[in-house]
Every structure is written in C-alpha cells, then in structure tokens.
C-alpha cells in the first residue's frame, strides 16, 4: 500500500521547521529517516495532512565533542553512530546498540533522534541512552530546553517532546574507557528484541550501568543490579546474584513473543551475559 495524500514541506533550518509545525499543528507529522513513519503511513495507521522533512537541515546531523559530553545530532543515522570515533571512544554502548538496530539498509536511513522520538518500547536505543544518563535537547516555539533521560520516556510511543517541538540533539556524558555490550534476544534476525540488555562497566567491576529494553512501556534501569555490581568480580559467580535482581520491580508485557514471566527470566539471563561481555570476560 502507499500513503494517503499529504503536503510535503522541506525546511532548511530548525526555525523554519518549528514555524511549519506551529502553523499546521496536529495535522502535521515530522519525518526524519522515515523508517518507522513510512511503514505507519503506508499501512494507513496514520494520515497526516502535512509531512515536514528534517532531512534538509544540516545542523541536525553529525557528532561533536563538547568537553565532558559528546553531542549527537538528531538526524545522525544509526550507521554513523555505530562507526563514529567519538562514540566508540566515549559511549561505546551506543555504538554496540546502534549496530544491532534493524538491518544495514534501515541503519543507513534511520536516525538516532527519530528512533528515540518514536519511543518504541522494543526500540534498541532507549535503554542505552537511559543507562548512559543522556540528556535530550528539545527546541520549541519558546526556545530550547533540556530533559534528562529519566524524564524523557513517558509511555509507549510517548516522550517529553511536545506537539510543537523538535528533538535537536542528544548529549551523552562521556564514559571514556568503559566496557560495553548490548545483548539482544530476537526471534527474527533484523527485528526488534523480545528483551535486550544494555550494559556498560568501569573496571572489572568498579561501577556498572544497566538498561533494559522491552521490559515495560518505557526503557528501564536495573537499579538493584547496578548497586549489587559495584565491587563485584567479573566472573559468572561474581555477577550472578546481581543479575538475578535485573527484573525487580518490572512488569513486562505478555504477547506472542513471550509471556511476562518469561521476559523476566530473559532479563536475568541476558543481564548476566551483557555484564560479563561488557567487562571483557
């Protein structure tokens, strides 16, 4: 199927894009890489009257060093995030997770900001962004504001981005030298995970940060696991007790891919694997 009719706008600056959003309000939809939006439009699950393409706004693309953080433009593709030196050096977890998103063709088009704004609970980038305490820079008619990762993900497909706002960039605090691994459990090679675990560790193990994908309506932090890992040894025995806490406080969905208790089991097992691989053992 093909999408219903829409008008197409191709602004060349964030200001222009915001003005277009302001003018068309609820009738408008932003398109970034289109890798989630176009399937939705083609299946006619949504039919906006106006589509505003961010593809012509070059300031939204690219990754830069900003002292204690790296800053990733919303329109930077998954492919570029995976391979960028600043990411592999200071936020290795994002590189590992970006490599696991969809397939090569979709990674060439899909964007970092688009995936996070889409906020699919099974999306692969939310949990790593949450684990790395990313900050989301959002531009709107009244100027720019910054939202912490913990406040950014609101619900299924819902973020702190308002209808008249655009996610412009994401600041990721540097985790230089931290080991990282994204352990994704899938049924079909290039699809969304049933459950995935994002782990990054300093030393082996001085400090650990662990994010969970598809264990609820938003990405989650495995806080109890993180606390138990501080000072643990990077061995199967050393991480087992901590990994067993990974599903604490979660209430994952049951669907055709797995029941809720099965997802909790997966979270515990995958956390153990992710942490050990992140620690290099």
């Amino acid at each position, binding site marked *: *199927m*093909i*999408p*219903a*009719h*829409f*008008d*197409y706008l*191709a602004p060349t600056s964030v200001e222009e894009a915001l003005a277009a959003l302001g003018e068309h309000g609820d009738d408008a939809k932003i*398109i970034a890489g*289109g*890798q989630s939006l*176009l*399937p939705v*439009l*083609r*299946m006619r699950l949504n039919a906006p009257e106006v*589509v505003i*393409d961010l*593809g012509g706004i070059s300031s939204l693309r690219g990754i830069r060093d900003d002292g204690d953080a790296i800053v990733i433009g919303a329109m930077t593709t998954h*492919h570029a995030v995976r391979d960028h030196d600043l990411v592999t050096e200071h936020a290795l977890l994002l590189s590992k997770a970006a490599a696991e998103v*969809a*397939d*090569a*063709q*979709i990674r*060439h*088009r899909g964007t970092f900001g688009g995936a996070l704004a889409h906020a699919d609970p099974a999306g692969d980038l939310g949990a790593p962004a949450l684990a790395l305490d990313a900050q989301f820079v959002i531009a709107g008619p009244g100027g720019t504001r910054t939202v912490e990762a913990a406040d950014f993900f609101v619900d299924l497909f819902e973020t702190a981005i308002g209808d008249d706002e655009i996610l412009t960039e994401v600041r990721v605090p540097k985790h230089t030298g931290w080991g990282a691994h994204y352990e994704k459990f899938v049924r079909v*090679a*290039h699809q969304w995970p049933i459950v995935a675990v994002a782990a990054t560790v300093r030393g082996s193990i001085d400090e650990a940060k662990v994010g969970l994908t598809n264990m609820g309506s938003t990405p989650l932090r495995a806080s109890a696991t993180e606390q138990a890992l501080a000072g643990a040894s990077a061995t199967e025995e050393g991480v087992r007790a901590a990994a067993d806490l990974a599903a604490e406080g979660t209430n994952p969905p049951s669907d055709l891919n797995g029941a809720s208790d099965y997802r909790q089991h997966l979270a515990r097992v995958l956390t153990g694997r992710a942490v050990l691989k992140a620690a290099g053992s």
Partner: protein
Amino acid sequence: MTKIELTVDGAAVSDDVEPRMLLVQYLREKLGKTGTVIGCDTSNCGACTVHLDGTSVKSCNVLAVQANGRTVTTIEGLADTAEGDLHPVQEAFRECHGLQCGFCTPGMIMQAVDLLAENPTPTEEEVRLGMEGNLCRCTGYHNIVKSVLQASGQTEGAQA
C-alpha cells in the same frame, strides 16, 4: 505535486511527483526500471534495495521527494550493460547458483555490493549478518552466501 531532480543510473531525470510516491514506485512506474521489485508491505524483505548516494536503502521505505538532488543506482545501472558485461557480483551469483526464482536477486545483489564496499573480505558470518535485511524464499541462503564470498575473491570464504 513536488518537483524533483535526481540522477538515476547515471542519467539526470526530473519530474513532478506526488509527495506520497515511494522511491520504488517512481523507479518502476515513472522510469520503467522494473528491475527493482517490491516483495513486501513492511520493509522487511529487501527486494527493493537500491543505492542512494552510494549506500543501500530499501526503496519502498523512502519517498521519491526524499531522493531529490541525490544519486540513485539500481540493479539496472550496476553494470555497463551497453557492453553486455555483468558486475562481478552478478557474475558470482550466476556462477554459484545464488538464485532460484530470482525475485530476491536484485535486492540481494545491491546489498552484497554495499556490504563488499564496506568490508571487501568478509567472513561467512559477516556475510550472513550483512545480508540480514534481505529475505529469500527459495535458496536457503547457502548459495547466496557463497556468491558473495566468491565475489570478494575468497572462493572458500575466510574463516570466521
């Protein structure tokens, strides 16, 4: 209607298109380049893979207007067909029986060319992973993987 100007298989083209027109529709219906095929409705199968500014994309998941000002290469523009030549990857698919019904083949070849551009000597596992966005209902993938390894100049394939 929105005016677009782009280069397709080496030729400059320009057209007025509806914004909702998909790139694959534009290629097939406006330009008659039916070498690029549509195999699904969900952007899963990869049959429609073309190169946009030199990297592989699923042309059913790109709007024609998003290709404005850019360069598209389809399976039809891969080899110098005027000379009757095949691209080395096409040649390898023929030699290794990398196809049965052939429906997935244009997309497989375009993705294989992209993969080899990024990683000229992949291992077998890297080929399987790099082709994960392309589905084949006939071959069981074995000869497709062989074809890509052969095109890379490693007849036996590097050890993983």
